[in-house]
């Protein structure tokens, strides 16, 4: 055995010892990403995830909005979430909005900054279930006057994710399905502004799950890491003149999840004329910070 080989063996033994010590001090089922047992819940487009992790997203959205001009909205959404504890973290969101029209009118600028906190209080590996609660605050007056409101909005919410991997063998081809969702009111701080209810969910079919745990159907790259996702982000007005009116879209799309990043694209179909008359597009670029920087930015501050 050469010196290099012996040195390599010792290095590996020491690394194993170090890893063993680290694993003894932390939960083995790492809470990173949206993992619950075999289920990987991807980050989706407009419906907030049920899990907390160290991640960074850029979401591009273009749609023609209903109402008066300017009404062609192009938006670049930026999201960053950071775990403080393994199951508790903070989330930051902002967006740069450009409103254009067929005429002369246009406006652009940063929207209000949103800051949130989320606590993932249940992760059940056997039943592929995740439950979380959180609160998001849109801080009024932090955005450009042309595109944002001066009042704030407080949005407490309940989040859930459930994979169907616990179905019996006879229903094995249904196992790759999963649902996620969020339910919560939005309270504006300015009196007179309407209160609304966000109710949003996603239906997912994971080709990753099918290929790895149910049946190898021969999918090669990149299809073996894809997840079919349809989102249903809805909002219902709870009082004032708009009481009972619902707006929302149906977003059928596809997500590819690599080792360090996620890419996705979806259509955005308004459910009624109040929500829009034209189909929009969503494009997602997402980084797993916990995998890219596992020993610095990507780990909880208090692991």
């Amino acid at each position, binding site marked *: 055995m050469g010196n290099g080989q012996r040195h390599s063996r010792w290095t590996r033994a020491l690394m194993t010892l170090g890893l063993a010590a680290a694993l003894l001090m932390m939960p*083995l089922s*790492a809470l990173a990403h949206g993992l619950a047992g075999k289920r990987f819940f991807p980050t989706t487009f407009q419906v907030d995830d049920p899990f907390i992790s160290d991640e960074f997203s850029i979401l591009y959205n273009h749609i023609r909005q209903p109402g008066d001009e300017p009404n062609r909205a192009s938006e670049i959404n930026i999201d960053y979430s950071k775990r403080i504890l393994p199951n508790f973290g903070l989330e930051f969101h902002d967006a740069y909005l450009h409103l254009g029209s067929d005429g002369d009118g246009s406006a652009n600028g940063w929207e209000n900054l949103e800051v949130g906190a989320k606590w993932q209080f249940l992760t059940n590996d056997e039943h592929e279930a995740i439950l979380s609660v959180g609160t998001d605050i849109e801080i009024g007056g932090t955005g450009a006057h042309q595109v944002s409101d001066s009042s704030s909005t407080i949005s407490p919410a309940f989040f859930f994710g459930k994979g169907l991997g616990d179905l019996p063998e006879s229903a094995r081809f249904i196992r790759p399905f999963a649902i996620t969702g969020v339910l919560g009111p939005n309270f504006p701080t300015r009196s007179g502004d309407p209160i609304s209810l966000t109710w949003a969910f996603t239906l997912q079919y994971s080709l990753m799950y099918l290929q790895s745990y149910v049946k*190898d159907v021969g999918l090669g790259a990149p299809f073996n890491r894809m997840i079919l996702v349809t989102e249903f982000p809805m909002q219902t007005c709870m009082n004032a003149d708009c009481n009972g009116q619902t707006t929302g879209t149906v977003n059928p799309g596809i997500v590819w999840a690599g080792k360090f990043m996620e890419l996705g694209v979806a259509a955005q179909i308004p459910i009624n004329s109040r929500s829009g008359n034209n189909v929009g597009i969503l494009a997602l670029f997402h980084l797993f910070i916990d995998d*890219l920087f596992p020993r610095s930015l990507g780990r909880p501050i208090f692991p």
Partner: protein
Amino acid sequence: MKIKHQRNLVFGLFLAFLCSPPEAALAHAFPDHSDPRVGATVSAPPAMVRIWFDGDLEPAFSTVRVLDGSGKRVDKGDGHVDSSDHTLLEAGLTALHPGVYHVYWSVVAWDGHRTEGDYTFTVK
């Protein structure tokens, strides 16, 4: 407000950090393919079960077990990460009779992220 003017700068600095080279990270290890294949029906009893992952595994914390339909263990208890290919987890099997067999695996990638899973195959 000051926050509005600083937002582009903060975002730019953060993007610059993200563009820096990643640490020696191997991320979560997910299965790539296996032999016998997931959900397959084979006519000849396999001598081994082998699962290839999409990243290197930590041998000390990676295990594989194979059970028959009655829950009896049918692997030889020698499950291990291959010494020359650290993406391969394998175990020898006893002589299998026709029936459905369940493979359970649990692996830890080199950065400490654990993943686990299971699948079945059938011997005709």
